[in-house]
């Protein structure tokens, strides 16, 4: 029977495992596998486990519940050990590295901040600032533009969009970096110009929230910020 791993934490502490439901259908019962100073929270791995929403959600709920109790190193979704014995051996083999990281993230939580800007607002700004873009745009709008003009305008604007997004992301990250222990820059997708995770110590959480709010206020109407957290420190293990 292979073993599905949710998170690592210090050995011997009581955890409310009977209240939690693991991956699989029906949901697997949770238990622990002990190394020496560390233990892993695990369940039997269901046959043919796939990344279905229900299972990803179960993984996340287990790790979040554990995080409320103690410092944990969250595993990436879908990690399966061949059996308990090999997992235990692995915990012992890498004990010092895991323990060090556990100590470092203790009392911290991850916050993910995504930011986007209304596209029309940005394009207007670019056309206002760039004479060449304005000229190309005018030529195309009056029916004189060639295919090459359209590509040239798009390329110019695309470059400006990227540069302005980068600058905006840096402004936000700089404002927040003083409230966070570490930052992890993720890839922007879905039009977000920023997708950054911050590792925030508990005593600076209020300040972090306040700074996010101030930054969002200053950014103006065209911006949308989505702050998610506290989360298990997925980006910092």
């Amino acid at each position, binding site marked *: 029977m292979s073993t599905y791993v949710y998170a690592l934490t210090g050995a011997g502490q009581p955890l409310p495992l009977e209240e939690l439901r693991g991956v699989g259908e029906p949901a697997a019962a949770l238990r622990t596998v002990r190394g020496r100073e560390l233990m892993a929270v695990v369940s039997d791995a269901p046959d043919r486990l796939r990344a279905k929403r229900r299972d990803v959600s179960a993984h996340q709920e287990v790790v979040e519940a554990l995080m409320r109790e103690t410092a944990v190193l969250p595993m990436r979704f879908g990690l399966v050990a061949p059996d308990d014995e090999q997992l235990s051996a692995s915990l012992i083999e890498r004990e010092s590295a895991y323990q060090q990281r556990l100590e470092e993230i203790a009392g911290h939580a991850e916050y993910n901040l995504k930011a986007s800007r209304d596209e029309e607002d940005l394009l207007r700004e670019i056309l206002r600032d760039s004479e060449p873009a304005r000229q190309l745009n005018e030529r195309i709008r009056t029916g004189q533009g060639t295919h090459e003009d359209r*590509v040239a305008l*798009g390329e110019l604007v*695309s470059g400006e969009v990227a540069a302005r997004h980068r600058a905006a992301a840096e402004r936000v990250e700089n404002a927040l970096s003083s409230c966070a222990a570490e930052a992890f820059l993720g890839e922007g*997708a*879905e039009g977000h110009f920023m997708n950054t995770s911050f590792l925030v110590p508990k005593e600076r959480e209020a300040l972090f929230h306040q700074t996010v709010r101030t930054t969002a206020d200053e950014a103006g*109407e065209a911006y*949308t910020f989505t702050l998610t957290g506290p989360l298990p420190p997925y980006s910092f293990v």
Partner: protein
Amino acid sequence: MTLVQQSSATSGGSGSGNLYDVLELILDRGLVIDAFVRVSLVGIEILKIDARIVVASVDTYLRFAEACNRLDLESGRKAPSQLTDLVGDMTENGAKGKSKGALTGAVEAVTESLQGKKDDSGQEEEAPRKRPARKSSSSRQSAQRSEG
């Protein structure tokens, strides 16, 4: 500005309402032990590749050019579409649908397909349907084929 604050991905009684916003963290980050395997993420991998579609290409350029052409420059800055608002613990992502355009058009379908999956699995959890294997094998997406 709009600031959406979500206390966590799975809280608020909404099941996994905000899971999409942290999906990449759960699937892409987190600790791995090299010696052990990860389950197949078929379907999810495709999703992530699609979400990185924003590439520098002629198609992208043309979309930007078109978006510029469409702008009504005479009217000046668009009136704010909504008042400054602060939303706590939203179960739906307030940013969805707000910023559609050249930047987001390409990944729109991907988002929708995941949300579709959410609805499906939500139904599964509340009222598991017993489908004969024969019937469920027809036209579902790969991520859902392993039901049962």
